[in-house]
């Protein structure tokens, strides 16, 4: 069974988990098509990280659109960006992501939107949180068709940052830098470890005990369904109208 809850949506569960990653007094950014990360970052700002500075790229709300995309890239290259969020049409077990083409690059089956800065951000942001709302074998593959950005680098590459967490609609994984693999951290309510394995095309590390992802508290849900919903809806109206938030 996929994730199931009568009390909160998958977006609310993921946003709540994401919020725990956000540290106070840091810079955090996100890019296009990222309503769940935005909700998670704003939840952190409303709770434990009031002095975190959130600078999403391309927001239409002037209160969120504080600096340009170029300046976000500059912050990252300067080593001052703590978290950025990336997805991937394909993500492999070593943390490589593909946002470029599916199939042979010169005659692709699918032409994707492209790197949009991820080739640099993945290296230079302290922590990259990978997220996907589709946990299937077509997304989580053994090797990506095209390495738009690499999960790890050799010694001659200056690389302070890289993948940290991978969160999907069924589970949470943490990247193990020394082994270049993902470790299953938790499964969402209603999901079994076997289902995660069946729907993942790469080998992942599985501990003996895998807990269930911590549910949002009533206080967190109240915040998410209040001003956070309004602000996320201002940027991503489709996410709200399609039931991204409950209540």
């Amino acid at each position, binding site marked *: 069974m996929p994730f199931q809850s009568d009390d909160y949506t998958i977006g609310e569960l993921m946003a709540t988990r994401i919020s725990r990653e956000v540290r106070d007094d840091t810079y955090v950014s996100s890019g296009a098509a990222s309503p769940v990360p935005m909700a998670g970052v704003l939840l952190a700002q409303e709770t434990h990280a009031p002095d975190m500075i959130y600078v999403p790229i391309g927001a*239409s709300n002037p209160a969120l659109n504080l600096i*340009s995309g*170029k300046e976000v890239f500059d912050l990252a*290259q300067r080593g001052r960006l703590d978290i950025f969020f990336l997805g991937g049409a394909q993500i492999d077990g070593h943390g490589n992501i593909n946002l*470029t083409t599916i199939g042979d*690059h010169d005659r692709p089956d699918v032409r994707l939107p492209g*790197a949009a800065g991820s*080739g*640099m*951000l*993945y*290296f*230079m942001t302290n922590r990259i949180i990978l997220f996907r709302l589709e946990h299937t074998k077509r997304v989580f593959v053994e090797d990506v068709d*095209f*390495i*738009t*950005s*690499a999960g790890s*680098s*050799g*010694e*001659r*590459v*200056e*690389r302070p940052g890289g993948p940290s967490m991978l969160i999907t609609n069924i589970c949470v994984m943490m990247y193990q830098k020394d082994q270049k693999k993902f470790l299953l951290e938790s499964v969402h309510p209603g999901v079994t470890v076997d289902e995660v394995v069946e729907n993942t095309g790469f080998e992942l590390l599985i501990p003996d005990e895998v807990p269930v992802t911590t549910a949002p508290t009533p206080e967190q849900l109240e915040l998410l369904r209040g001003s956070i919903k309004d602000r996320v809806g201002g940027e991503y109206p489709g996410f709200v109208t399609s039931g991204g938030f409950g209540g």
Partner: protein
Amino acid sequence: MPFIPSRGVIGTDLVNLHPNWKIIEDPYNEGHDILLVPAICPDIAIIHAFKADQNGNVLAPGYEDRMVAQASDKVLVTVEEIVDYDLSEDPRGGHLIPWPFVSLVVHTPKGSHPGGMKPYYEADNDHFSHYMEASKTRDGFDAYLDKFVRGHTEDEYREMVTRVAVPA
């Protein structure tokens, strides 16, 4: 600026796509490599902007537009409206591209369609959906081109997309 160094990117397939990018040892960071990307110098830039005045000053949506204009040999700008005042004296609501960087201005209302041009108009999502559906097959794509593009002027296109609902 003949080229620009960038962190990251080394080890991705993006490097393989660009034979003119170079990887050298970072002169400020011994033992580490860094990527160099050469300047792009377009023959022609085509930019859609908000406004132009009689002198060819342009008010554009983004700061990148001015950079693109500076880098290009010829700069063709399409605009939503022509104004009768000097934009260099009142560039409110956008980013100025001064006339020395502009070769040609064309008055093209709705020039972003089906994309949006805030604050003039939003993206036409129905049109995008229609195009997405039509372009799934070669025949559908051809039919789309015949209906909206081939044999039609800009004025005819604008008339069609602003007055006629997209067929279901």
